[in-house]
C-alpha cells in the first residue's frame, strides 16, 4: 500500500512539473505566433504605421544613393535625420533590390529581435551547461534546461514593448540586438579566459566591434558601453583602461569623419536635435507600466543582482541590468517612449534565467520534494508573467475565440486620435493589450491601406510633393520627401533652425497639399499653414485622423477619391 502510494506520488511529482512547463511554453509560443501575425500584417502595409518610420526609410533611400541623410534643414526639402547610420546602411541592399519599401526595414528590425531572443536563450543555456559541467567534471556534459532557455528567449518577443516596436522600420531594436550580442559574448569570453588562464584579445575585440555597431545604430547604446567597461574595470582595471582608450579613439574618429563629411550637419542633427525636454510624469508613468507588465522578471532579476552583489562576483549581466534600468529614465524625454526599456528587458530575462537555473540546481541537491517544489513554482511564475503581458489581435474569429477562452476581452473601444479635426466617438478596435490603450500593436487592416491610398490620390491631384507629416504618401507617388517634422521641432526648440525659406514657400502656397497627423511642426509653421491652407478632406488611418489641406482661395477643392 505504502509502495503504491509512493509510486503514485512519484508519478505526480513528474507529471505536474511537465504539465506546467508545457503550459508555460505553450503560452510563450502563443505570443510568438501573435508576434508573427502582427509582423506579417505590417510587412504588407505600405504606409507609415508609427510616426517616423517613413523618415528612416528616407535615410535608407539616401544611403542607397550614396548620400548622407544629415542635411541642412533650412533649405528645401527641409529634411534631415537625427539617427546614426548603421541600421539604414544595413537595409540599403534590400532597397537596391526592391526599391524604397517599408517592409525592408521592418523585416531587418524584426530579424534583429529574433537574433536578440536567440542570444538571450543562448546565454541562459551556456550558464546551465557551464554549471553542470563544473559540478560533474569528468562526466558527460550537461544537456542544459532547454525549456528554461526557450522561455527566456521567447519571453523577450512576448514583451508588449518588443511586440509593439520589433517589426517597425525603427532602428531601436537593432541596437538592442548588438548590445545583447556584445554582452553575451563578453560573458563567454571572460568565462573562457578565467577557465583557461589565458587572455582572449580576439574575443574582446569582437565585443568592442559589436559595441561600436550598437552605438552607431542608436546613441542610447552608451549605457551598455558603460556597463561593459565597468565590468571589465571590476575584473581587470588595467586591461579595462587599455581597451577603453582605443575604443573611445575609434568612436571619436568615426564621429569626426562623419561630421567633416557632412559639414557639421551630423553634430547638429544627431546631438543638438536630441536635446529634448525631460517630462518627469512621462518617465514615472512608463516605469510604472514597465514594472506592472514585467513584474516577475524584474523582481527575479533584481533579487539575483542583490545576491550577486553580496555573495558572489558581479556578472556582466547584473551590471548591464542596473545600467539599462538607470538609462531607462531617458524614456521621459520628449519623443522617447516604451522602447527605451527593451535593453532592460533583455538583461532582466537573462538574469531571471540564471537565477532560476541556480534555484533548480540548488533544489537538486536538496532532495525530491525541493526539486518538485522548484519545478512547480518556476513554470508557475512564467505563467504569471505570461498573464501580465497579455496582448492579442482579435481580428479573426479564431483569435477572438482564444482571447475569450482565456477570459480576456475581445475588443476595446478607442476614439481615433485627432489633432487637426474635431474629436470623434470611440470605435471598436479588435486588439487587446494589458499595456492599456495603445496605437501600436493592432495589425493594420485593409481599410487602413485603402485610407492610405485615398490620401495619396488626394496628393496626386496636385502637382507638387505634399508638405506632409508622414513620408509614406510622397514615397508612394515617387515624389520628394519634404520635412521631418519632429526633427524640425527639436531643432526649433534648440534655436538651431532657420525657418525663413520654409515659411516663405508655405506663404506662397508652393505646396499643392499639406497633410497633418499630429501637428508636430514648430508653432510658426503650423501658424503659417493655418493662414494659407484649409482642410478639405479628413481620412482616418491606423487610428489617426489625417487632415488633407489645400491652399486657401484656390478653386481646386479636392474631390474625394472615387467621388
Amino acid at each position: 500500500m505504502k509502495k503504491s502510494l509512493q509510486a503514485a506520488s512519484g508519478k505526480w511529482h513528474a507529471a505536474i512539473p511537465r504539465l506546467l512547463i508545457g503550459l508555460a511554453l505553450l503560452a510563450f509560443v502563443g505570443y510568438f505566433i501573435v508576434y508573427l501575425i502582427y509582423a506579417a500584417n505590417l510587412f504588407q502595409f505600405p504606409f507609415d504605421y508609427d510616426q517616423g518610420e517613413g523618415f528612416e526609410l528616407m535615410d535608407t533611400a539616401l544611403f542607397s544613393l550614396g548620400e548622407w541623410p544629415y542635411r541642412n534643414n533650412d533649405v528645401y526639402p527641409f529634411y534631415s535625420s537625427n539617427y546614426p547610420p548603421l541600421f539604414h546602411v544595413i537595409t540599403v541592399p534590400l532597397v537596391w533590390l526592391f526599391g524604397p519599401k517599408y517592409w525592408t526595414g521592418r523585416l531587418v528590425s524584426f530579424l534583429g529581435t529574433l537574433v536578440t531572443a536567440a542570444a538571450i536563450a543562448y546565454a541562459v543555456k551556456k550558464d546551465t551547461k557551464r554549471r553542470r559541467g563544473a559540478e560533474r567534471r569528468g562526466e558527460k556534459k550537461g544537456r542544459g534546461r532547454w525549456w528554461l532557455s526557450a522561455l527566456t528567449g521567447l519571453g523577450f518577443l512576448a514583451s508588449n514593448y518588443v511586440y509593439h516596436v520589433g517589426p517597425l522600420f525603427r532602428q531601436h531594436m537593432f541596437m538592442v540586438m548588438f548590445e545583447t550580442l556584445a554582452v553575451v559574448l563578453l560573458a563567454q569570453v571572460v568565462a573562457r579566459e578565467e577557465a583557461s588562464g589565458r587572455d582572449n584579445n580576439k574575443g574582446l575585440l569582437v565585443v568592442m566591434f559589436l559595441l561600436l555597431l550598437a552605438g552607431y545604430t542608436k546613441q542610447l547604446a552608451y549605457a551598455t558601453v558603460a556597463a561593459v567597461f565597468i565590468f571589465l574595470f571590476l575584473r581587470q582595471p588595467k586591461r579595462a583602461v587599455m581597451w577603453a582608450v582605443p575604443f573611445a579613439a575609434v568612436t571619436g574618429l568615426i564621429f569626426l569623419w562623419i561630421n567633416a563629411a557632412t559639414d557639421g550637419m551630423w553634430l547638429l542633427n544627431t546631438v543638438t536635435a536630441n536635446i529634448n525636454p525631460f517630462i518627469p510624469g512621462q518617465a514615472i508613468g512608463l516605469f510604472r507600466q514597465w514594472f506592472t507588465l514585467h513584474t516577475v522578471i524584474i523582481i527575479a532579476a533584481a533579487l539575483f543582482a542583490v545576491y550577486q552583489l553580496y555573495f558572489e562576483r558581479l556578472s556582466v549581466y547584473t551590471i548591464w541590468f542596473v545600467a539599462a534600468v538607470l538609462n531607462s529614465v531617458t524614456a521621459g524625454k520628449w519623443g522617447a517612449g516604451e522602447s527605451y526599456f527593451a535593453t532592460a528587458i533583455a538583461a532582466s530575462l537573462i538574469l531571471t534565467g540564471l537565477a532560476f537555473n541556480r534555484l533548480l540546481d540548488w533544489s537538486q541537491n536538496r532532495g525530491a520534494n525541493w526539486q518538485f517544489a522548484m519545478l512547480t513554482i518556476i513554470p508557475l511564475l512564467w505563467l504569471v508573467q505570461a498573464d501580465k503581458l497579455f496582448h492579442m489581435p482579435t481580428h479573426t474569429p479564431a483569435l477572438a475565440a482564444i482571447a475569450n477562452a482565456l477570459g480576456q476581452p475581445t475588443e476595446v473601444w478607442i476614439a481615433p486620435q485627432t489633432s487637426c479635426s474635431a474629436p470623434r466617438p470611440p470605435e471598436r478596435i479588435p486588439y487587446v493589450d494589458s499595456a492599456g490603450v495603445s496605437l501600436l500593436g493592432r495589425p493594420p487592416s485593409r481599410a487602413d491601406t485603402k485610407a492610405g491610398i485615398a490620401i495619396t490620390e488626394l496628393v496626386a491631384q496636385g502637382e507638387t510633393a505634399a508638405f506632409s507629416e508622414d513620408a509614406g504618401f510622397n514615397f508612394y507617388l515617387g515624389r520628394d520627401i519634404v520635412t521631418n517634422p519632429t526633427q524640425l521641432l527639436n531643432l526649433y526648440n534648440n534655436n538651431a533652425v532657420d525657418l525663413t525659406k520654409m515659411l516663405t514657400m508655405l506663404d506662397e502656397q508652393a505646396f499643392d497639399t499639406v497633410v497633418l497627423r499630429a501637428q508636430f511642426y514648430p508653432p510658426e509653421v503650423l501658424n503659417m499653414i493655418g493662414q494659407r491652407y484649409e482642410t478639405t478632406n479628413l481620412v482616418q488611418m491606423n487610428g489617426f485622423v489625417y487632415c488633407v489641406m489645400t491652399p486657401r482661395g484656390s478653386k481646386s477643392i479636392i474631390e474625394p477619391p472615387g467621388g
Partner: protein
Amino acid sequence: MTKKQLGHSFIFLGIFLILALFGIDLLGAGKFQGIGPAQKLALTGAGAIILVGLSLLPRGDRPA
C-alpha cells in the same frame, strides 16, 4: 577589485552626487527655492548608494 573597495566606491559616488546636487543650487541652475522635488529624489538615491556602500564593507576582500 574587492567588495570592500566596491563599497568605498559607492560611498564616494554617493557623497559626490550629494555635493553635485547642492553645487547645482550654487550655480543657480535650480528653479525651486530650497530643495526641489527632483533634488529630493536624487538625494534619496545618493543616500541609498551610500548605504549600499556601507553594507558592502563587511564583505571584505572577497572579489567584487
